[in-house]
């Protein structure tokens, strides 16, 4: 269960669990999170929770709402986001891992109409142009509890770049002297249709692999086979008649 921790001037005042589809925040007493302060509007903001995701929406409040220092109208809450309303802070803490192991995290699961209804009802309120939800029959398969133990989201991982950036310098031919930084995960070399090799950038380092052509690339004087080969600092590659040196940027 995700939660919000209310604090002011660094002092924790209260914790609120996000159990409902709509958690309202404001000065009026009918709000789920009531903040009795003139800088906070009567109906200041609302947090819409759809299964494991929570969205913050400012309800045209007088002084506005900030998240991590930026004014927002609507914001998709991420773990440890700080919401500011006047002098008050609400820290968003997403669901803890608890039971679910990492292995469960990426499991594809079927979403049943029952579990869906709460989520889509909240979505329908938040976005009037909601599309029709597909109802897949009436049979109840007990997927509910399994959905609830979904662990906190990790952002889609960016590839961890090799600590050192690889460079290529052309040694012979018309482009001799030219240098190229190998920042992308894939860099192709050579002439399509004649001879092509690819340098892949992986967490473990850089590798060269033959892609097409009758001739295979030559690495440090040795002709390669179809397998990928690691590129060490100052490796010399020969491809399509051109020699080039691979080295790590200082």
């Amino acid at each position: 269960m995700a939660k919000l921790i209310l604090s002011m001037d660094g002092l924790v005042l209260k914790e609120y669990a996000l159990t409902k589809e709509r958690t309202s925040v404001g000065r009026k007493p009918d709000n789920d999170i009531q903040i009795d302060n003139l800088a906070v509007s009567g109906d200041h903001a609302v947090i819409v929770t759809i299964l494991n995701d929570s969205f913050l929406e400012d309800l045209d409040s007088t002084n506005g709402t900030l998240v991590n220092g930026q004014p927002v109208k609507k914001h998709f809450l991420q773990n440890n986001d700080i919401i500011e309303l006047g002098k008050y802070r609400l820290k968003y803490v997403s669901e803890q891992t608890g039971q679910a192991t990492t292995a469960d995290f990426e499991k594809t699961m079927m979403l049943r109409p029952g579990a869906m209804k709460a989520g889509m009802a909240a979505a329908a309120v938040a976005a009037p142009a909601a599309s029709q939800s597909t109802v897949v029959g009436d049979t109840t398969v007990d997927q509910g509890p399994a959905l609830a133990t979904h662990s906190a989201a990790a952002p889609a991982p960016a590839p961890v770049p090799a600590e050192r950036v690889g460079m290529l310098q052309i040694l012979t031919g018309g482009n001799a002297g030219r240098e190229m930084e190998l920042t992308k995960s894939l860099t192709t070399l050579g002439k399509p249709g004649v001879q092509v090799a690819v340098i892949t950038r992986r967490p473990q380092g850089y590798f060269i692999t033959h892609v097409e052509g009758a001739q295979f690339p030559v690495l440090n004087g040795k002709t390669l086979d179809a397998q990928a080969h690691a590129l060490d600092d100052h490796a010399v590659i020969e491809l399509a008649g051109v020699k080039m040196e691979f080295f790590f940027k200082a």
Partner: protein
Amino acid sequence: MNLEQALEIVSATDPGMVRSHNEDSVACDAAMGLVVLADGMGGYNAGEVASGMATTVIVTEMRPVLERYTPLEGDIRTVPSPAQKLLRDHIARANTAIYQASQRQPQYSGMGTTLVVALFHDDKMSVAHIGDSRLYRMRSDEFSQVTKDHSLLQQQIDSGLITPEQARFSANKNLVTRALGIDPAVEPEIHDYDTRVGDVYLLCSDGLCDMVSDEDIGMALQTLGANLNLCAQQLVQMANDNGGRDNVSVILVKILHNYAVPRGFLSKFFRWLK
């Protein structure tokens, strides 16, 4: 020109870095112009059973039908096309098989699978899908997603609640709204598309698109399109390098030649008009 000469097909499937089992299943038959990919779900090893049944039933039962099939004059412009009917019927059979198995065996209860099938015929491709396994196309350096996921996240994107960029951070990933084998009947989404020589199609399970950005997938297809085996290996490797938190499967189909079915004067005329 038979299909085997017109299409280059390569597939790869990998359990990934975290899972002990591979519950994905892939099947390709170049002679039939048929490729199938399924990502199973369910407790214990039920996912493996469900996805395996899906690919086996579809390929095995479609084979005799496709071998006998001769296109008729009237095929042009019929909606839905015979290929679509064929896919719909055989997907229904696979659904029944999986559903009945899940009813009979307690350990398979509730098992299901996603599905993405492509049937290549007559310079066209009929694509059927259920769930969040996808089909992408690379055509002249333009990379695009052809199928639309049947998932909670896609519905949220469609209703404007969330942007595709935000969707990558959602904790509601992997919740599908349709699956094969979960209910007595299922509605697959089926469309026909024209194909061109040089096109490269990618079918994949979410183990790929959840771990690798569309940009990187497109780059792999673009740079390694000349070597499909290497391309498939590269895609799996990228998914694993980024964490490999799920089984990852890919099928790559490259259109090498036209494979239009020769017909009488009327159909030749219609094709010329296209």
